[in-house]
């Protein structure tokens, strides 16, 4: 009996008829161009196929081995956050005209995706205070790397100075990306209050500097003085790149307001599920003067031959499929569906909803921080203002405490030793609108017990 599979439509009759039309005797003959030596003589060393029913049960079991946010109270952040996304977002993403389509190369039949991208770009621009946004990059770290490369291309300079609050993994990605480009990456020191040491920063920024990157809020949760960064950068002719968290932009000065030239960051907090790290959404926006350096797809408005407004991928001479080795980036497939998700999520929230989410996170975080820092030996690690994520110093080694809390059903924070060996008493705690006062109180009690 032939191999029957729901994804394979050709029946034995179909095959026979098709082979006849082609003019070969058997299907294997079509593989003759592959030298016989390369054609597999025995089956792959893998399990046999599973039916849909079996797939569901096998993966249900695997999923069951993970403790989701529904099973453990989750206070992990550090670049990926648990937020509530209204039901409608997932429903609209399941519109298969969106998710089963390719990059909109033929605009006449893909206005839906194109207009959604245009709306996404508009959302990112208003959030960041920038003029132009692309249609998405892979994720936040990638977006920051591309932003630096934009600055490098624009200025013709080869040094990047990072603020102290840049996510350590973002910094690593940047280093990997620029490894062969002879680019110098330096990072300013952290001041005692948890922000960038601006004197150190100033010292590092010189005439060879293409860009200064300010992360706001910084990795440790603290708010930076964006305007001071801008002054320092611009004084030396460097561009200012702001790496920002989009929900916070409902409350904070936008990059545009404090003088950034490029804004970038991770868009996951705009309604994307945590999904163990991806698919997420790198966003990248800039001042109009930088549009030619911008990597990736950009959607523009135009008219059709009937006089209607319409949308199309534009300025494509920046891109790899046209310019090949001269392109300003190699990106092809991006994260469009995630951009659409973020756009729908932002539409569902609106400005007031986004403010509500941001404010509730901040208020709940401050409520929790006050409770936790009231415990013996526990204190906030830094004094600078912060929003909904803070560095907590437990006074003792954090790992065993975290393990005890985990046993009580709480993922209490990200241990900073993961990134900085020496910070082994500190944890990074993120609080969002999803937590109730009752949960926060449970956390405080549990920490007290875990420390006792």
């Amino acid at each position, binding site marked *: 009996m032939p191999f029957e599979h729901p994804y394979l439509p050709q029946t034995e009759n179909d095959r026979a008829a098709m082979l006849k039309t082609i003019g070969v005797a058997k299907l294997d003959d079509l593989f003759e161009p592959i030298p016989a030596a390369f054609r597999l003589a025995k089956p792959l060393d893998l399990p046999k196929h599973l039916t849909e029913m079996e797939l569901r049960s096998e*993966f249900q079991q695997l999923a069951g081995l993970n403790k989701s946010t529904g099973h453990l109270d989750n206070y992990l952040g550090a670049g990926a956050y648990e937020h509530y996304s209204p039901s409608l977002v997932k429903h609209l993403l399941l519109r298969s005209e969106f*998710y089963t389509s390719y990059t909109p190369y033929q*605009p*006449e039949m893909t206005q839906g995706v194109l207009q959604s991208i245009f709306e996404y*770009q*508009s959302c990112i621009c208003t959030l960041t205070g920038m003029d132009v946004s692309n249609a998405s990059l892979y994720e936040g770290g990638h977006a920051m790397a591309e932003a630096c490369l934009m600055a490098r291309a624009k200025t013709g300079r080869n040094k990047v100075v990072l603020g102290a609050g840049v996510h350590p993994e973002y910094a690593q990605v940047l280093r*990997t990306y620029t490894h062969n480009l002879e680019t110098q990456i330096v990072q300013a020191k952290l001041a005692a209050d948890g922000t960038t040491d601006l004197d150190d920063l100033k010292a590092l920024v010189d005439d060879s500097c293409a860009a200064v990157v300010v992360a706001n809020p910084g990795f440790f949760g603290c708010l930076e003085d964006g305007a001071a960064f801008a002054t320092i950068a611009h004084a030396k002719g460097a561009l200012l790149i702001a790496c920002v968290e989009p929900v916070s932009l409902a409350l904070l000065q936008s990059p545009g307001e404090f003088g950034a030239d490029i804004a970038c960051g991770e868009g996951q907090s705009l309604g994307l599920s945590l999904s163990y790290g991806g698919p*997420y959404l790198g966003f990248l926006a800039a001042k109009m003067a930088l549009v030619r350096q911008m990597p990736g797809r950009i959607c523009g408005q135009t008219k059709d031959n009937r006089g209607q407004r319409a949308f*199309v991928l*534009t300025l494509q001479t920046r891109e790899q499929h046209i310019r090949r080795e001269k392109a300003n980036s190699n990106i092809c497939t991006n994260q469009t569906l995630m951009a659409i998700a973020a756009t729908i999520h932002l539409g569902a929230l609106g400005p007031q909803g986004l403010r509500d989410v941001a404010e509730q996170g901040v208020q709940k975080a401050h409520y929790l921080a006050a409770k936790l820092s009231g415990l013996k030996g526990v204190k906030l690690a830094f004094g600078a203002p912060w929003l909904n994520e803070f560095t907590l110093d437990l006074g003792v080694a954090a790992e065993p405490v975290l393990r005890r809390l985990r046993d009580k059903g709480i993922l209490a924070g990200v241990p900073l030793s993961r990134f900085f060996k020496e910070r082994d008493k500190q944890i990074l705690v993120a609080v969002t609108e999803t937590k109730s006062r009752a949960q926060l109180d449970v956390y405080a009690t549990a920490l007290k017990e875990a420390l006792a």
Partner: protein
Amino acid sequence: MSEEKLIFEKSSPGRRASTFPELDVPLTPWDQILPKSARRASALDLPEVSEQDLVRHYTRLSQRNIGIDTQIYPLGSCTMKYNPKVNEDIAGRDGFRNIHPYQPDETAQGALEVLWQMERWLGEVSGMDAISLQPTAGAQGELTALLVAKAYHDSKGRRPRKVLVPDSSHGTNPASASYCGYEVETVKSKADGTVDLDDLKARITPDVACLMMTNPNTVGIFEKDIATIASWLHAVDAQLYYDGANLNAICGVARPGDMGCDMMHFNVHKTFSTPHGGGGPGAGPIGVKEHLRPFLPVPRVERRVDGSYFLDETAPQSIGRIRTFTGNFGILLRGLVYLKSFGSDGLAEISRGAVLNANYMLALLKGRFKAPYGDRCMHEFVLSVADKKRDKDVSATDFAKRLADFGYHAPTVYFPLIVAEAMMIEPVETESKETLDDLAALLMRIDDEDPAILHAAPVNTPVGRLDEVGAARNPVLRWMPTKP
């Protein structure tokens, strides 16, 4: 269907499409939290609409779009195959969807096992010795692999400066190469579509770091001399890169790792059926041979003797991190589900179906359209309408636009660059014979039509041909609120 306003144009101050519970903790005064100077002063011009209006807007936009679920999408090089619904359901499970990338490994054993298994499956399918699931898409896979090659050469104290790419190669190949500072040299193709071996041989010097090959190549022809090419490269310790975008042609039938390839990427969103999402997300894992393993990016997924899994960041020779967190997990998961649905007994049937469909389609069309590379192909083929352009002023674009009138997406047009007025057709294995018959008949019907009809097309789509030049000349890239 009439124009659909922008969501911003449907906005009315005060409307809400969602509300949140009241704050249940005592309010910390805002002045104690946030200095005035740090606060946003500029407007936040996000849409304010009701839930129904929001849902209606994006439902309507979706109706102004086509996807695989509406009609065959024969876009060459893109492998637009059926996106199984069960994959979406599995990826949507709470236990996969709602887990944080920094959860302690003990609380994410299922996710880690998924990644570990995926590495094993990809390794066996490709014949590669080690897999990294980090890269987010094919292009990032290329970049990662080139960085790995660079680290390898570095480790040997060598600094070759060149990357070779065939002229038929995909744009991301040269772009990725120059991205990491290589000089790109283009190798010619022969009339039969394969790499010109003489031209190639002449270019292989110790200064060559890598040759990037797609096999079958972008015109759908298998590069049968790949082993010879590999041996030439290896003689100077250059690496052979396999662009896996066309893996659908040989999956389960032959393996890049057996052909002398040293490294490769997979397009999970092509070969392994994950949805393209209007442009992304995808996943572009890479596979390498043993000698390149030490240089793979971190983190690596490892298994302890007790069977538990963990993420390892300690690889001294690693190129480092190519992205934040641990890859496009949700996509890799879908890809694994797909692979398991075929298994060892079924994987070859994917390529067998794809190659059958492509050859059948080519057989149907070759009498009418010029097939510059002969009667046979692997999983896709290229036609040229240069003669029709010359004889009756009908271009590949015209065919593309006219197909839209019937609800069909066009083939890839004007790629690869070596074929004039190219139409590259990849019918994929999930399409039935009837669908192929219909598309072939339609192409011939269009060919019979008055050229004026093609020039005017499309007329049945929500919008007609666009002013693309105007779009680029006067870029309008965002909606702007009208000043009151």
